[in-house]
């Protein structure tokens, strides 16, 4: 009897061995080393290997479902205005914001700029607290509370971010647009906001309560002050992301629908989190 058990287990172990080799994605480590040496981008593309199109029909249909367009179709009655505003924002970004951010980055060292960015993020804690609360995400609230307490004290008024770097407490960015989405509100029509960029009806409405909650910009600051603060925050933020927008733009065949699609995809994913 014992022998029978032994044989059975042995067979299973052997079978298991098979399945592990099957699962290895084509490559193994020695293969990586060998391909390393033949480095030339213009060499034969990897996709040149002939593929049998049979048997893939089922898989195709699965992919078609996964990438079905109905899930990303965006209502866009203002496309004319949106397109014009995208061009305006693009020009503003390229010829005004970017040069200013570059000059700013040249003068202010990066650690200081990261400090400013951390500080602003920490100050906007009420927005995240209230929206996580509204969505009843209690684990997130406890994370955010902990982050705020640690970063405001040990992190010197939020200039540093020990909560992320030493304690691994994740951020939970939630805004009112996401709260509305969480409770089933659709995005509504797409709307490109001046200087802010892509948005939609839901998220634009969502900006209003968030502004009330923001200690940086609220009803107590005059419009002039608000613009100055917002401007400084944006320049600082952009100075840490120089080159990213340009790199992204290269992937676009047509900028406006490209940015629109990216924005809507990102918001769907933000809301799902």
């Amino acid at each position, binding site marked *: 009897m014992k022998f029978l058990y032994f044989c*059975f287990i042995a067979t299973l172990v052997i*079978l*298991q061995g098979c*399945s*592990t080799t*099957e*699962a*290895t*994605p*084509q*490559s193994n*480590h020695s*293969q*990586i080393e060998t*391909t*390393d040496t*033949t*480095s*030339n*981008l213009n060499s034969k*593309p*990897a*996709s*040149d290997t002939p*593929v*049998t199109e049979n*048997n*893939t029909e*089922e*898989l*195709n249909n699965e*992919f*078609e479902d996964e*990438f079905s*367009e109905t899930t*990303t179709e965006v209502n866009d009655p203002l496309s004319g205005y949106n397109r014009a505003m995208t061009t305006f924002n693009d020009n503003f970004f390229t010829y005004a914001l970017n040069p200013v951010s570059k000059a700013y980055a040249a003068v202010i060292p*990066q650690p200081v700029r990261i400090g400013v*960015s*951390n500080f602003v993020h920490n100050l906007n804690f009420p927005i995240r607290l209230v929206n996580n609360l509204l969505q009843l995400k209690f684990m997130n609230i406890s994370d955010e509370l902990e982050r705020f307490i640690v970063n405001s004290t040990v992190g010197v008024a939020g200039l540093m*971010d020990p909560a992320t770097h030493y304690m691994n407490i*994740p951020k939970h960015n939630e805004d009112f647009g996401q709260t509305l989405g969480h409770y089933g509100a659709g995005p509504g029509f797409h709307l490109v906001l001046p200087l802010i960029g892509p948005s939609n009806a839901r998220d634009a409405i969502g900006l209003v309560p968030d502004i009330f909650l923001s200690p940086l910009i609220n009803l107590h600051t005059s419009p002039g002050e608000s613009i100055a603060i917002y401007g400084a925050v944006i320049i600082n933020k952009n100075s*840490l*992301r120089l*080159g*990213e927008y340009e*790199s992204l733009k*290269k*992937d676009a*065949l*047509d900028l406006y*629908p*490209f940015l629109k*699609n*990216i924005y809507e*995809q*990102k918001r*769907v*994913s*933000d809301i799902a*989190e």
Partner: protein
Amino acid sequence: MLKKILTILLLTLLSAHAVEEGQIKKVMDSKVKKTLQILKNNKLSQKQKENKSVILMDNIFDYRTMSQISLGKKWKTLSTKDKNKFTRAFEKKIKYSYIDKLKLYNNEKVITKELKKLKPNRISLEYAIISKGKTYKVVYLFYKKKNSNQWYIYDVRLIGVSIIQTYRKQFSEFLKTKSFNQLLKSL
């Protein structure tokens, strides 16, 4: 007796899955680690860095499936020759886009997050890139090839945005007003 066998069978099956998933993670982790080493290596020229890091991903990216998904319904109407042409052009496009993003690399830290089995033939593997105080989520999506039982990447999601979905949308908009050959040219 039967109960025991079933238990053993179940346990073995479970562990078989764990190893299977572990393999993908191990290979990807080593690829990511190597890419970072290449990018940090000051002895290499920019061009060498680019070539090396692209080749590292070559055998795990399924460019043909990516091309196919990105073209959607149009794919079926193409001749084999056109399919090959498009796949080659799209592969180049993706590689150049990838290279362009690598240029932004500035000592960012990359952390392996979780691997999720979404379906029997779908796996997602998440990484977090920590850059200047911000964390970016990168998810690699794998599918299992039916006839060969091997896993390939068919899409990458950056901060929740699917690269292939974005191209798919762009191509379908483009093809509404322009021809396939014009699309090939613009790539």
